[in-house]
């Protein structure tokens, strides 16, 4: 996955300031963990999607 995507995703999530406004001391970490979890899931989802696309293309080129 391109770094640009991660940066954009993280920034979009960071902008939502009020979402974690109720969190107790020290749990700025929990907010970060939530953002990181979304980034991580996107990373692996995209990785797996790319693999499938590549496989599909290689299968198609094999057919020809």
């Amino acid at each position, binding site marked *: 996955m391109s770094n640009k995507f*991660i940066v954009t995703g993280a920034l979009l999530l960071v902008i939502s300031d009020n979402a974690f406004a109720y969190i107790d*001391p020290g749990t*700025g970490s929990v*907010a*970060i963990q939530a953002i990181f979890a979304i980034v*991580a899931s996107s990373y*692996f989802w995209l990785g797996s999607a790319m693999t499938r696309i590549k496989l599909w293309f290689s299968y198609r080129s094999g057919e020809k």
Partner: protein
Amino acid sequence: MMTVHPASFRDRAGAVFTHNGVLFRRISVIGRPDYEFLMASGLYQKLSDADHIVSHVEVGQETAPPGLEWSDGELIIQPDLVSVLVYPYEWCFSQFREAALLTLDTCLDAIQSGMILKDATPFNVQLKSGRCLFIDTLSFTKYHEGEPWVAYRQFIQNFLVPLLLMSKVSPDLNSLLSVYLNGIPLNVAKAMLPRRSALNPLIFLNVYLHANYETKFADVREKPRVKLSRAQLVNSLKLLRKMVEGLSLHQSKTTWSNYYQETNYTSDSLAAKHQQVLRLVKSVGGKFDRILDLGANNGTFSRLVSPLASMVISADIDPLAVDANYHINRSHGITNIVPLRIDFTNPSTSLGWACRERDSFFARCQADLTICLAFIHHMVISANVPFYEVARALTLLSPNLIIEFPDRGDSQVVRLLAQKPENHEYNVEAFEQAFDAYFETQEKVNVQGTKRSLYRMTRRQQ
């Protein structure tokens, strides 16, 4: 007599103690449900079979040693012993990275079995048989779907940040953990990392933004209501793993990292030194429990003497030399050498709660024999420590000593003395006189083809 280990007081789930010199772990009523789940879920067996966690046996009333008692509802287990405790501020980069990967893998395995690690500190990992081993059986707790990882920040501050600093700033910066025993503060990490590190989105998120959020939410009082699915949690751990795995040492050369390539020995004289050292060690007699090799560089002589000892503690100040030592031992399948990074002019002291939580280097690393090769001139000339002080310090470590003395004509000594006054105290007479007050010389031999001598000494009764 029962003595609770001074580092084992924070976890209400249990404590490590010794009873008549044997190590046990008490599992309290609070810790028992998680322990029983760990055993029943098959997680312990899986980790133990993979040599990822220290193995243990449960102590029953009928097998308990005399005098060992415990309350109703408690359990006692007897873990396998780790021969020597080496702390994360003494590790090399590769060991640190392996410990971080072990922690993440253990956490991923735990999640598969319905558990999770409730803490993530490198003090839960030790080196045994040449490999990292998780030693805290009570770090596991039941995982509840939706809960974030409670040890996430601890992992970042105790594993990821030290590794980033070692990788991107200086390979010895894990020594900061001796100042920040509970993890390097994110603001400190942010200030120390090169600015370009912030261009990496994963570092930006976990260090820079994390530091800002900690400050931002410092005064908020409500309990967090953030939920993470199991898949999100697993993906986070896997991505952290990928980050850690991708880290490497940026610096490739230090003062002593190429010592054996840039040495003043010819191959004949080096072979002669090998022979002499081996003969002198054998002449001390018997099989050693422990040999301490000070100034070990990449462990060449530690490996030479390792068949003669149950364990060799192989210490050096140079982080890259210690890293090379770790790699060579791993690639040769040598399991009884413990490499550690120690500045002998400023070794690890007793640290932590009541100054008893983490023992000093001198308390942990006593041995039957100390070997100091290519060592004394650095202490006396570079570090300005008088001969008698070096001798006195060495008496605290072992009753036997093999020490090399390079004479003033040796090229390394000439180089070190170049910036010193001409009447510098460094000479063989001063060395022998100072050491004679603390050690009795049993044998002295010259290393063929060099201006160096080897001494075998025994400690005098004080």
